[in-house]
């Protein structure tokens, strides 16, 4: 591909667009999380700043920006600084191949899904660096938990995606949605994979009931115990963006992405994404935390066999048809 003015402009637009999506999403999701939590707990959540308290997150963000960043004296400073960045950058990049409608997409890639999965793995590297770099035992415990659980959910997650790829016959995220245009949404063909995928992304995004990497009552704040100010909020930005990304992939793979009647495509896409986000919040505010070994047992002994079986059956049926 030649570097032309058009391609440079497109890249700049992509960066601006993704930054906008990430920023607005974080502001909105944090607000939504607090509202959902509030109403589940007989409270109102934020009400003061802006209409319905919508600007509360902006105020919080400004506060976090203006706070001093404290570096622990025994921290490994380069790693300490690098960790939140490594957490955040991959999710930015992973948003590139995500289509919000047939035409609204930063860049179409044949292997878009693979790229997203590969970049998603880097999140754990960021957590590991954070836990190691700040020389804190709680943080290290949290990081080691995050690393220990990665295979327990990643393999079932991939095994849930594979049947969809078999059905669609492509790795391109756009083509997967297009494939659902002609038939039904893949959630109806693959209910088991859909359900397993939901559980797996809850684990992947470190959300309760699988939030042991930052288990508040056990590890104070887990891997980000020592982080303060803007660096702390970078982790949060990464977490909420990661949730957004995982929900976007879920709606593309199983709920037909932008497909839907009457409303325009991007609106449908966002509605589906926020449906998944709401589900995750619902889990978080109603479930106690699972223990680490229970989660590993669950991942290896229940999720993995079922998703493998599901994949084999799908492959068998596809071969016969």
């Amino acid at each position, binding site marked *: 591909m030649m570097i032309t003015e058009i391609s440079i402009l497109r890249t700049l637009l992509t960066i601006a667009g993704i930054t906008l999506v990430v920023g607005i999403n974080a502001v909105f999701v944090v607000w939504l999380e607090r509202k959902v*939590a509030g109403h*589940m*707990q*007989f*409270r109102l959540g934020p009400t003061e700043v802006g209409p319905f308290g919508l600007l509360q997150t902006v105020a919080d963000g400004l506060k976090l920006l203006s706070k001093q960043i404290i570096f622990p004296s025994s921290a490994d400073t380069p790693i300490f600084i690098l960790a939140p960045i490594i957490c955040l950058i991959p999710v930015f990049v992973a948003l590139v191949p995500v289509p919000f409608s047939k035409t609204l997409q930063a860049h179409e890639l044949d292997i878009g899904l693979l790229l997203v999965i590969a970049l998603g793995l880097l999140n754990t590297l960021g957590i590991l660096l954070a836990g190691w770099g700040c020389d804190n*035992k*709680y943080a290290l*415990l949290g990081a*080691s*938990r995050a690393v220990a659980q990665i295979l327990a959910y990643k393999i079932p997650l991939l095994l849930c995606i594979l049947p969809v790829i078999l059905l669609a016959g492509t790795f391109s995220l756009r083509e997967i949605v297009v494939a659902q245009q002609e038939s039904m949404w893949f959630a109806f063909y693959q209910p088991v994979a859909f359900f397993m995928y939901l559980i797996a992304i809850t684990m992947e995004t470190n959300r*309760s*009931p699988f*939030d*042991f990497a930052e*288990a*508040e*009552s*056990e*590890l*104070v704040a887990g891997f980000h115990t020592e982080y303060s100010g803007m660096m702390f909020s970078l982790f949060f930005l990464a977490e909420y963006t990661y949730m957004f990304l995982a929900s976007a992939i879920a709606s593309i793979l199983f709920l037909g992405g932008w497909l839907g009647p009457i409303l325009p495509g991007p609106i449908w896409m966002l509605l589906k994404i926020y449906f998944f986000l709401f589900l995750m919040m619902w889990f978080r*505010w*109603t*479930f*106690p*935390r*699972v*223990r*680490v*070994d*229970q989660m590993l047992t669950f991942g290896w002994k229940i999720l993995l066999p079922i998703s493998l079986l599901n994949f084999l059956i799908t492959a068998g049926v596809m071969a016969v048809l």
Partner: protein
Amino acid sequence: MFESETAPTYHLETVEDNQFVLNLGPQHPGTHGVLRVVLHMDGEYILTADPVLGYGHRMQEKIAETMTYTQVLPYMARMDYLGALSYNQAWVCLIEKMCGLEVPRRAEYIRVLCVELNRIASHFLWFGAFLLDLGAFTPFLHAFADREKILDLLESVTGSRLTHCYFRFGGVGADVDDDFFAGAQAFVDHMRQHLPTYHSLVTGNVIFQERTKDVGVILPFETWGYGLSGPVLRGSGKQYDVRRSEPYSIYPELDFKIPVEQSGDCLARYLVRLREIEESLNIIEQAVAGMPDGPVRSKVPKIIKPPEGEAAMAVETPRGELMIYLVSDGTKVPYRVKYRVPSFANLSIFSHLARGQLLADVLAILGSLDMVIPEVDR
């Protein structure tokens, strides 16, 4: 069986390879106050756990030796701030027993009513904090919303929301009005409707069951060596409740059961406490229904001077048996006061339970013991 145990060594120099020391607390969200636990860990597993106490120590027993009997009374609420009225009751009952003071029946009824309300409030706080230890946030606020109703009720009677000082020698501080009874009855009706929500939100939850079942099992034969009492004991199949075994006040006349669970794990202690809330509701209802008329305070001498001698008085606080042992030399100042506090004994089994457990389980165990650190430290 215990004699073979060797002396524990908790010093940093003895840490071997692949082990590390974790200081849990004194500022840790899981330790409910200023408790510090020195954990020797191998990965996520606990090798030894050594609680370090004394961060909230105020030498209450020495304070009591320097004050008159009346002046000691407000200090009682500062030990167990969640079960303040039980402590009030222990002290006034002890002095009444030693001096042979009469208590009007209406005062006894009001005392029991307030103490049981206080017990429910304490169990609510425990319920929320325990679930918070397990990582569930929402039940905490549900419990606090209901606890708030009790605090409002007690505030209208005692004037304070937490460190109540309401009971007096020979009665209570002031009479209560009908609004209070109506409020107590309304609370009972509300809780009867709302308690099933607690069970459907928490008790039946698969994750909750997995986290608490067979975790931190206290076997029945371990109980008396550590002197356990309260729900911690009753979760292990021992039906011991001071309200029944050493009846005081009007408890012999009331109809209530002592909930007991056999399995001795965190779930058993949880269930015992929740069923205790129901029994306390029954007691409140009976106390409101049977409330006699009359004075709330008998005539007592201005200066309390118990005769020379000694006495012990035990009451059932929300956490277990509180026993006050008093040696009097016949003056207006106590010669020696010993508070036997339930949390202290219940916490002493913790390091035995924690050995070999996962970190997450240790915090569940710590939560299920329901200790109040200022009470342990005194």
